[in-house]
Every structure is written in structure tokens, then in C-alpha cells.
């Protein structure tokens, strides 16, 4: 069976697997932002926590993905549904770039700007939301970009535990020794990753603070 005829015959299934894939990565990314950005901010305020937090995120990152999916299987509630489990695993993998880039973005804001803001009488929250986060936004977005691109690739493996997504086609194609089926899963995933890279990269530039030429 050739690639194009497989795609046209299965376009609805491919579309729904793509949507499922996007859903997993999207929710995982939102959760990772919701957890990682505050953690990144926390370690700029409590330097003593920096090493342990980064080390933990680093360790998670080193667990092989298939093993992580497996480890999480016995977890209550999470383990009941493969989708939940995949989202949790993807979120854990995304944490490191979120935490690290949030920290680096804020730590990278010019000291004299921070001192000026404090000296003018901004409260800590005003400093964070008006000065630090806006100036760190492009660095944080760079972290989001990296983690989304990685997650889109990783999410294909989630099919191994039955979480669906484009990985289903890839695993099915591998079992059938049929390249057309593998490609029908791999190509949309690759396009999704490229698009995400491009879109978030565009946002990153938009949010970059104006600089001297």
C-alpha cells in the first residue's frame, strides 16, 4: 500500500490521532508552565532551594522515557487512564527547561534595573510582574519552545502504554513492517514540531525586550 493512498483512506483517523497528540502535549505543557514557572521564580527568591530543585528536575530528565511511563503505571488515579499517565510523564519532562529558563531569564535582568525599580519603591510583586517577568519573557518562551518540541517527539512513545496519539500509527507500522503507516504517524508529528518551533520562536522574538542595536 502506498503512503498517499493510506493517508487518504485513513484521513479521519490520522486527524483524530493528531488532535489527541496535540491535546496531550498541550495539556502537559500548560501544566508544566503552571508548575515550572513558579518554581523558577521561587528559586530566584530562595537561592538555597536552587540546587535541589534543579537537581531534581535534572534527575527526572535522565529517566528513559519508556521507563518513566512504566514507573507511573501503578500510581493511583493517574495510572487508571493511559492518557493521564502520558500527560503526567510529558509534564515531568518539560519541567526542567521551564524552571531553568525562568530562573535564567530573571537572573539575567540587569542588576541596575532591579535596583532602580526597588529604589523607586516597587513592591516585590510589582517588581516581578512589571519588570522581571516581562524582561524574562523571551527566555521563558525559549524554554517552552524546547520543551514543546521535545514533548511532541516523546508523546509518540506514549502509544506504547495505550495513550493514543500519532505514536499509534508508528507502532502499528512497525508491527506490520509497513513504512507507509509509520510515515503517516511520523510526518504529522514532525510537521507539528516544526510548526510549534516556528510559532513559539515568533512569540519569543515579539516578547524580546527592545535592545540597543
Amino acid at each position, binding site marked *: 500500500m502506498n503512503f498517499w493512498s493510506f493517508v487518504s483512506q485513513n484521513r479521519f483517523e490520522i486527524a483524530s490521532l493528531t488532535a489527541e497528540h496535540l491535546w496531550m502535549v498541550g495539556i502537559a505543557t500548560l501544566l508544566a508552565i503552571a508548575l515550572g514557572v513558579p518554581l523558577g521564580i521561587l528559586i530566584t527568591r530562595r537561592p538555597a532551594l536552587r540546587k535541589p530543585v534543579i537537581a531534581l528536575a535534572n534527575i527526572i530528565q535522565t529517566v528513559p522515557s519508556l521507563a518513566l511511563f512504566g514507573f507511573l503505571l501503578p500510581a493511583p488515579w493517574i495510572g487508571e487512564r493511559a492518557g493521564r499517565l502520558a500527560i503526567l510523564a510529558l509534564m515531568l519532562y518539560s519541567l526542567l527547561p521551564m524552571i531553568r529558563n525562568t530562573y535564567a531569564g530573571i537572573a539575567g535582568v540587569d542588576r*541596575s*534595573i532591579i535596583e*532602580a525599580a526597588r529604589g523607586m519603591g*516597587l513592591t516585590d510583586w510589582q517588581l516581578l510582574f512589571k519588570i522581571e517577568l516581562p524582561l524574562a519573557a523571551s527566555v521563558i518562551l525559549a524554554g517552552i519552545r524546547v520543551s514543546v518540541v521535545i514533548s511532541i517527539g516523546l508523546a509518540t512513545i506514549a502509544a506504547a502504554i495505550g495513550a493514543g496519539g500519532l505514536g499509534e500509527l508508528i507502532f502499528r507500522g512497525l508491527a506490520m513492517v509497513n513504512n507507509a503507516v509509520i510515515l503517516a504517524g511520523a510526518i504529522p508529528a514532525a510537521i507539528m514540531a516544526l510548526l510549534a518551533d516556528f510559532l513559539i520562536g515568533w512569540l519569543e522574538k515579539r516578547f524580546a525586550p527592545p535592545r540597543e542595536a
Partner: protein
Amino acid sequence: MTGSQQSAVQFRNVSYRLPSGHEILRDLSLQACSGEILILLGRSGSGKTTALKLVNRLREHSSGEVLVNGRSTRDWDIIQLRRHIGYAIQEVGLFPHFTIARNIGLIPELEEWPKETIDARVGELLNLVGLDGDIGSRYPHQLSGGQRQRVGVARALAADPPILLMDEPFGALDPLTRADLQREFLSLQQKLKKTVVFVTHDLHEALLLGSQIALLEEGKLVSCNTPGEFVASSEPLVKKYVEAFAADDVLKRGRA
């Protein structure tokens, strides 16, 4: 308090030590009276910038007392204290992601002034520091060093604080622009009558602007004089400063 003049900023036996125990300021006693310009003069590492930062509590003194309007800075709400004091620094510290107008209007914005009042105030301040009103919509990186420095002064004046802290605000400028800004600042001060604490290492600037010149060396106050007294002083270190300044032979060399 001395005579009829009220002290707006006062240091009483103030010391500042780093957590390592290293002493940056030792037993500093000084005051700036209302409406005058107190210069903190000294070389790098003399503690003059640290002394300035004790006033708005960017640093916390280890012992002694810093008084603002007769009240210990520790008794002030820190945000109220800082909003009571304008702050302008050498690297300007303008916020690169804000327009000039928003930079100047930030404190009024946080104090929830009505928008029209803020706009009017920003226009007034730009005019006051000699800038075009249409510069307000630009970003800091689009301005020259001299323009940025003017914006820095305008921003410090935004909420009309009675006290100004200035840390080498004209330090990074070319000599001509610098002289312009010093002159303008002086005439501005004659109108506004703020209490100014001004850090510099430049004796020329100190003599030009100061009502009082406090010379610091290695964290200690060497002397505190009016410019006239300073030039005539017999204190050895003060004499060294004055001599180094007077012995500037570069011009003679050009003529030879």
C-alpha cells in the same frame, strides 16, 4: 536640627558591615538640610554609594540610625519611604520594555493617579528636563546617553518627592553634555528646592553643585564643608584632592 533649617536626611553614628564582617562604613554622622545639595565625594570603594543606599534602604545599616524627615528609616514603611525619595543612578536603570512616558509615569501609575494627570505630569517633566514631548512614545534604547540621563532625572522627580538620591547621575556622559546637564540641574534645583544627596568622585562636580561636600575615605568621614571651606581646608586629604584638581596640567601641555 541646626538653627532654622530642618534636617531632611541624617546619619547618626552609622556603620555598615557585610555579613563577612568587612566594614564598609564606620561611625558616619552627617546631615542634609532641607533644600540643600549634600555631596558625598570619594574614590571608588570609599563607601559613598553604600551610604546613599542606606537612605532608601537598598542596604540596611548595621548600627546607628538613618533618619529621613526626623524619623528612623526603620520606622518607615519601606515602600512609603522609597516613594518619598526620588532615585537616579548612573546606569540610569530605565526599563527597556517601557516607553519613556511609561518609565517616567510608573510611580504615579502605581499610586493610581488618573491617566490624564499622569500624562500631563509626564509632559511637564519632559519639558522641565529639556526634552521634546514627542520623545515620550520612544523606547530607552532609541535615545542618546544624555537624553536617557535626563529621563532618569525626570523619572526620579515624577511623584514630586521632597528628597532626591543621585548616584553619579551624569557619570557616563561626554564632558560637554555633562556640563550642560550639571548647569541645567542647578537651575532646576533653584526652582524645585529639593533635598539632594549626590554621590560623585568628581571634585569639579562637587564644587559646582554642592551646598555641603562630605569627603569619604575607606568608609570614614574625612570632612564635611561648604565648597568655599573645602577649597581652603588644611585637612591633608582634602588638600590632596584640591591640589590634584588644581595641578591638572593637561591644558598647559597642549599649549607647550
